[in-house]
């Protein structure tokens, strides 16, 4: 309301000045590539035909958005995201409760749970691929010797399974941090009042943990939506199992079509921005470290 004092103004100017280098670096490494992609997406630009580059307006968007391959990839991505994040939330919560309550060997329990998350995704994906390949893998033998990765639905299920195995520990870790926020006294008081374990979980633990749960969901949803490495190793997108990132890679790197590929990158960027917007504005997810507005 009132005008800022001279000292406060100078302080603010200094603050901006100190931020400037960081802003410049961010603009160079994050801002410029985004702007350049948008520019490329408006051009016909195929490295195979260097003489035929031209400005085509929104033609590339029309091409991509009217392609059944793109919609199939989007659909696959959404299925993988929703299913894997939902399962991870349930499993992660169970794991978090176990880790939170463990009295003996807490360190060992936590460490061993985190092992899948510590393995490089591509390495883990290779071991999954070999496990599911008839002849070399034990899982394929258990499944009756069928090459599951060569059919669409079984392949997608395998990819989802690999995702869940890989990132449930991450979910559990974030949820465990949230569990630490739940006051013991509150739970004890509820128990004295006769609340069952399930009632204590749904009426006290979950509401108190809500910010932590939303942050965990936001992180995992954004991550799962951009799925690439697991898919690349497991199916490489054959039999219609491409995610949006996989299709973009195919067009950009394999097809050398910078125009179409950049269009897809921009669309993924918009989708990711939309997911973040929905979580933050509609569900009220707060970024870690920011004020949770007295939700506790």
């Amino acid at each position, binding site marked *: 309301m009132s005008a800022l004092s001279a000292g406060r103004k100078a302080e603010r100017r200094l603050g901006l000045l100190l931020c400037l280098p960081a802003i410049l670096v961010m603009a160079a490494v994050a801002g410029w590539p985004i702007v350049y992609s948008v520019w490329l997406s408006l051009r016909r630009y195929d490295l*195979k035909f260097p003489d035929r580059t031209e400005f085509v307006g929104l033609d590339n968007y029309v091409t991509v958005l009217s*392609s059944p*391959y793109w919609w199939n990839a989007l659909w696959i991505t959404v299925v993988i995201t929703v299913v894997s994040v939902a399962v991870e939330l349930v499993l992660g919560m169970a794991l978090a409760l176990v880790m939170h309550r463990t009295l003996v060997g807490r360190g060992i329990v936590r460490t061993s749970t985190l092992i899948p998350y510590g393995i490089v995704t591509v390495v883990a994906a290779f071991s999954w691929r070999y496990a599911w390949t008839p002849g070399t893998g034990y899982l394929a033998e258990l499944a009756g010797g069928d090459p599951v990765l060569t059919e669409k639905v079984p392949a997608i299920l395998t990819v989802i399974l690999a995702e869940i195995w890989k990132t449930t520990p991450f979910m559990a870790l974030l949820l465990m941090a949230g569990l630490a926020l739940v006051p013991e006294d509150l739970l004890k008081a509820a128990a004295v009042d006769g609340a069952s374990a399930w009632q204590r979980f749904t009426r006290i633990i979950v509401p108190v943990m809500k910010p932590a749960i939303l942050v965990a969901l936001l992180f995992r949803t954004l991550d799962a939506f951009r799925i690439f490495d697991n898919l690349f190793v497991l199916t490489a997108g054959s039999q219609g199992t491409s995610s949006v990132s996989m*299709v973009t890679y195919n067009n950009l*790197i394999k*097809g050398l079509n910078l125009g*179409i590929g950049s269009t897809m990158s921009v669309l993924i960027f918009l989708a990711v921005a939309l997911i973040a917007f929905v979580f933050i504005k509609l569900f009220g997810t707060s970024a870690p470290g920011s004020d949770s507005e007295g939700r506790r």
Partner: protein
Amino acid sequence: MRGAYRRRPAVLGVVAVIAAAGLAGCGSDDGRITVNVYKYPQESFQKIVDRCNDQADGYEIVYHKLPREADGQREQLVRRLAAGDTGMDVLALDVTWTAELAEAGWIKEFTGADKTAVEDGTLETPLDTARYDGKLYGAPDNTNVQLLWYRSDLVPTPPETWDEMIEMGTKLKEQGKPGLIEAQGKQYEGLVVLYNTLVNSAGGRIVDDSGTKALVDDGAVKALEVLKKFATSPVVDPSFASSTEDVSRLAMEGGKAAFMLNWPYVYAAAQKKPDFAANFKWAPYPSIDGGPAKVTVGGINYAVSAFTEHSRESFDAVRCLRDAESQKFAAVNDGVPPTIESVYDDPDMAKPYPMRDAILDALKSSGSRPVTPAYQNVSTVISTILSPPADIDPKATGDRMRAELQDALDSKGVLP
């Protein structure tokens, strides 16, 4: 401190030399020029390089291995070429990449004495795969054509057409004997090769001569019918839709099949199982209705990067790497068919290459894959649309292929 100061000029000198060497893309200590060859992992290729290095005049060839899969090789090459990388001099290219790299201006044309040296004595079919727009862009290193492989204990006379082959297999199955036909039906280049052979044999075309218009004519639709008939016949392997070259080979060696359509490398592999090898024979690829089949030609050509800083040395190295002696060595040790006709007559070829006459015959009546800079897109579209082959509906599949190929050729469509 003072000591460090005094040493500085020397240090700077060393840094400058390293920087200069780095910039020039060659790092030999003795100031010799390095020719960097990028090729897929070939078992005895280093020996060929060593021999050429003994003959090399003032330069040294260094062999850098590319990934094992063709897609991975192409990706690494085109990514670095797109960036104008001067560190690559000689590139081993799949025959289908010539048009793409030539059109993009990433490989050099062979002219004058280099051109004559390459064309001299080389078979016309592989040479054609190195040409684009009437110019020569590659030096054929090895070629490849598929043959029909069969078991002589089950089949006394090999079939000449697809119908005959399916009929023979069905009879064998009825008698309770292995009667399956092995071929490549997975969604990848192998399926495109199979389909392309059928199209050429049926006298059809997928793409026109200019490489800009999708045709998919009656012959191409006829080929779809043959593929569909095979994929739904009782003699097709149940795992045809996920079968690659090696899967086919193992199924045949495992005693499931009487016939197999595959590259000549399977002969060398079969020799490790003497019982099986004794009855393992080859015949010309089956045709659609009599006459010779037009088998799809494969193979590798050497090209010189447009960004090389050692053009003369690179062309010189290519000459040696693909000369008759190198090709004979590669044929005998790695089983790849030569591109120089005289090598086939060499007496040393008789034992490792008893099927060399069949290969020569097949080469002379062979057909190529569509020639277009957008071949990668064309191939991806074809293998996606044909997969799985049992679901082909010849007329509708043909129409869909024509539409999507046209988009791919115009670099408009989305690659699946």
